[in-house]
């Protein structure tokens, strides 16, 4: 009874033409249809940030976006952060600072941090803490994550 909808979208710089059901979220689409399981399913209520992705450069909870809403939009997930085998400087910095413990929050943290650094290459500590305020971490106490973001090597920001 429910019609599926054909959309075109760019995910991690690749154009996709997809047939989606309206009652699925972007999170469902990424994980269950496209196998991009780096984006984590957490609270599914917009409170934990584990499913954070970038939509047109902005950090967004993918659990709060319906799949058809990404028609014509540009999506970046954790799988698109590294450049092939070369890790993004944020990822290097997370490793250097032991900012990853259990790892469940890490993809969302990295995407929130990227959206900050794309707008502001040398943020203050308060700006970093605000940028990741929608991402829960139950292991680190946040300090290593904040340090990792603050000390990320400046990179040429891509679009």
């Amino acid at each position, binding site marked *: *009874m*429910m*019609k599926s*909808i054909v959309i075109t979208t760019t995910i991690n710089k690749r154009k996709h033409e997809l047939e989606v*059901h*309206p*009652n*699925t*979220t972007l999170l469902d689409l990424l994980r269950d249809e496209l196998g991009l399981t780096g984006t984590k399913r957490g609270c*599914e*209520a*917009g*409170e934990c*940030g584990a499913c*954070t992705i970038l*939509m047109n450069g*902005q*950090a*967004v*909870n993918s*659990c*709060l*976006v*319906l799949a*058809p*809403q990404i*028609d014509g939009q540009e999506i970046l997930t954790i799988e698109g952060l590294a450049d092939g085998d070369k890790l993004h400087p944020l990822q290097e910095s997370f490793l250097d600072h032991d900012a990853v413990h259990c790892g469940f929050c890490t993809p969302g943290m990295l995407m*929130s941090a990227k*959206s900050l650094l794309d707008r502001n290459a040398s943020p203050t500590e308060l700006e970093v803490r*605000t*940028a990741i*305020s*929608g*991402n829960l971490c139950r292991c680190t106490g946040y300090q290593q994550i904040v340090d990792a973001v603050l000390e990320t090597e400046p990179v040429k920001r891509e679009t």
Partner: protein
Amino acid sequence: MRPFEYYSPRTLSEACNLLAEGEPDSKILAGGTDVLVEMRKSSAWSSKAIVDITRIPSLRGIGESGDWIIIKPLTTHTEVLHSDLVRTHAPLLQTAVSTIGSPQIRNRGTVGGNIMNAAACADTVPPLIALDAEIMLKSTSGERVIALSEFFVKPYVTVARRDEILVEVRFPKLPANARSSFVKLGRRNALSIARLSVAAVVCKDEAGVVTDARIVPGAAFPRWQRVPEAEKLLIGQKPSKELLVEGGKKVSEVMISFTGRRWSTEYKEPVIAVLVRRALEACE
């Protein structure tokens, strides 16, 4: 998530037609930060169709027209946060949106959605009522303008009909001698839901005498309203510390006259008084 019909109109008239003539049990989708959470609770969700209005460009943006600021309903909280017009002419609204949810929520959540969802904790509403905001609703049968203070019936219930779309929020720019503030009490800093909040606007003449005072508590009254009993205490006076304390106590008294004494009153009674005092102090 239960199945539903999904419509994504590209123009306002198309959206109005869908609401007037389409599935009667449909729900408007804007930022989705409340609607999607509701949709997942299948017990509470019964709508058979979603009308996604996010593809209607005319419903976005912040502008000015003479002495008025106009905010279109799909404007996100992040856009309000970065708006020079809002910073200059309605700084309390900027403070309020900075406390909403998280960056992710502010990037999606909209001013129109915050109003139409009508949760008692909606953070844009107390400042907008303190700004004397009005809203415009549109349907196939025409447009109507309502003072925001007259719009709400009780939490999650408004006077809007099912076929009406919020198309504009507007308010007069604050005068140059106005100071404004918004204070909020939540259980944590990020992603906090207002337990109580206060929006305040105070104008003074050159001598420091209050000429206009507006106090709007959030999540305190059965519906949002200004508290003229407390505002009157301030008008014509040069505020002293004692007067601001008295203003807070008056708001508390009026709140109890509306809500009666319930389990939470023991807490809310002193706390709303302190929040009002702090909001007024921030206008000094």
